[in-house]
């Protein structure tokens, strides 16, 4: 006995467009969005009115002409060098610290109890979830104004990020070479140094380079809280409403990021080819 079909041959009930769970999910998203706009009380008038556009226009017009005084350009050049140095130093410190923390944060072999694994991962998570800028604001108190605080801030946050990634690569490395040395009775540290590390080092390098790229961007703005580099110049001159100088600093930032972007793009292309 075949099922009764209606004349068009379609099942009577239209198929559900989506699962009820998905619908609930979308409903949650929608209510979150509505609640957000509702409670923030955005001043739409302040940025959509004619008056706002005019004041915005005036504000942008003040950026020009850009300051091109050679003395100031040298200052901006130094700011750029400082930004680059902060990012390099911060990333290098983080790579070292990240590796040092990644070892206790991973199970080195199958009979390793990994007692320190969970606590170390908690530390790494805490380091990672506090953004660079918040670290910088905190560290200003001990390290004083200037690029040193910024470098340390980058190092703290990046240690969290790299430590976790490094631990993951160490745990995923093929265990056979390490086991071969371990059965000879060689200590854990030497086993790690002569088998696991050489296996994972290309991956660690690529993670570190990727973070360096991120950190250049971060270093450029850290100075807004007083931690050196281009950001410090930016907030200083913007605070004094010297818009021409602000425009020059912004241009330097954009240029720096653009150069780094295109360099990494070409490097990646050459490495994947």
């Amino acid at each position: 006995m075949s099922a009764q079909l209606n004349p068009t041959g379609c099942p009577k009930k239209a198929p559900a467009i989506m699962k009820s769970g998905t619908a609930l999910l979308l409903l949650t998203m929608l209510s979150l969005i509505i609640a957000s706009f509702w409670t923030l009380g955005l001043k739409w008038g302040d940025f959509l009115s004619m008056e706002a556009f005019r004041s915005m226009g005036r504000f942008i017009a003040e950026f020009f002409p850009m300051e091109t005084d050679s003395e100031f350009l040298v200052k901006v050049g130094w700011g750029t060098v400082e930004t680059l140095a902060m990012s390099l130093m911060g990333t290098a410190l983080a790579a070292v610290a990240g590796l040092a923390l990644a070892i206790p944060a991973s199970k080195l072999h199958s009979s390793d109890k990994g007692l320190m694994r969970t606590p170390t991962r908690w530390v790494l998570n805490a380091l990672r979830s506090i953004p660079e800028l918040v670290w910088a604001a905190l560290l200003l108190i001990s390290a004083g104004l200037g690029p040193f605080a910024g470098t340390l801030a980058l190092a703290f946050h990046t240690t969290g990020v790299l430590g976790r990634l490094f631990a993951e690569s160490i745990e995923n490395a093929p265990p056979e070479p390490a086991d071969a040395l371990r059965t000879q009775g060689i200590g854990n540290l030497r086993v790690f140094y002569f088998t696991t590390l050489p296996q994972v080092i290309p991956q660690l390098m690529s993670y570190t380079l990727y973070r360096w790229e991120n950190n250049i961007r971060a270093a450029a703005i850290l100075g807004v809280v007083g931690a050196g580099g281009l950001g410090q110049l930016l907030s200083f001159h913007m605070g004094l409403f010297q818009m021409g100088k602000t425009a020059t600093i912004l241009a330097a930032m954009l240029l720096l990021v653009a150069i780094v972007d295109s360099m990494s793009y070409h490097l990646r292309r050459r490495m994947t080819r």
Partner: protein
Amino acid sequence: MSSLPVHNPRFDVPLRDPAWHQRMFWIVFSIVLVWPLAVATEFRPGVLFEPENMRISAEFIGSFFPPVLEPDLLWRIVGATWTTVAIATAGMVMALTIAFPLTILSTRVLSISAISGRMNTLPFVVRQAIRWVLIFLRSIPELVWALVFVRVVGLGPTAGVLAIALTYGGMLGKVYGEILESGETTPTETLLRNGSGRMQAFFYGLLPQNVMELTSYTVYRWECAIRSSVVLGFVGAGGLGQELDNSMKMFNGGEVSTMLIVFILLVALADAVSAFFRKRLV
């Protein structure tokens, strides 16, 4: 048969590190490289251990414990946390409204002239121009946009929402374009070849194919936006960041530690929610 310890001359060779030269080279090289960097970043760890600094730091860190748990402060933090989430959410919605039309206008897949040979000059120029706009929007960090908008619309969440909208609009526009162009384009192309309009081809060909990936990326970005909206508070865009900045300036360690704990929990929660959404979607 007794096994006497036999002297084996093979083990008399002194232990030698085969990679010694290489190692020394890298150590010297990095010292030479690190020295100028340390100078440029005014890297003086000694500063941290000067008695005066040690005293201040110890006092500040000491005041972290115990975290302040007064109901007054907790309510303020709850409010600020919600503001932070709301800024990120509203910013993302506005970023979407910026990115969506720009993506449709700039994607190569919806070009009719590009189906057969080269794209015509005018559409090519328009698409390229839109790409440049997107690059400009995302090259300026959201913190800098926020600094600018704080001066135009004043202190408060509006500046934060606008900052996230512009930077994330640029990012979403770029990545949406990449997602649309990397997928299977045959159905869209077929629709266009058979005379359907661009919007028809988009809604019936391109969008259904990629909607999951697009949504999943958007949710991931929302998670990032929550993190940046905290940071935006430091330049006066309201929310948890601003409260944190105020407490730090007053050296109130107890309040700072409460807020940091809340912030870490918030990030973990956003992480979990976003992972859950993305798993449901894919």
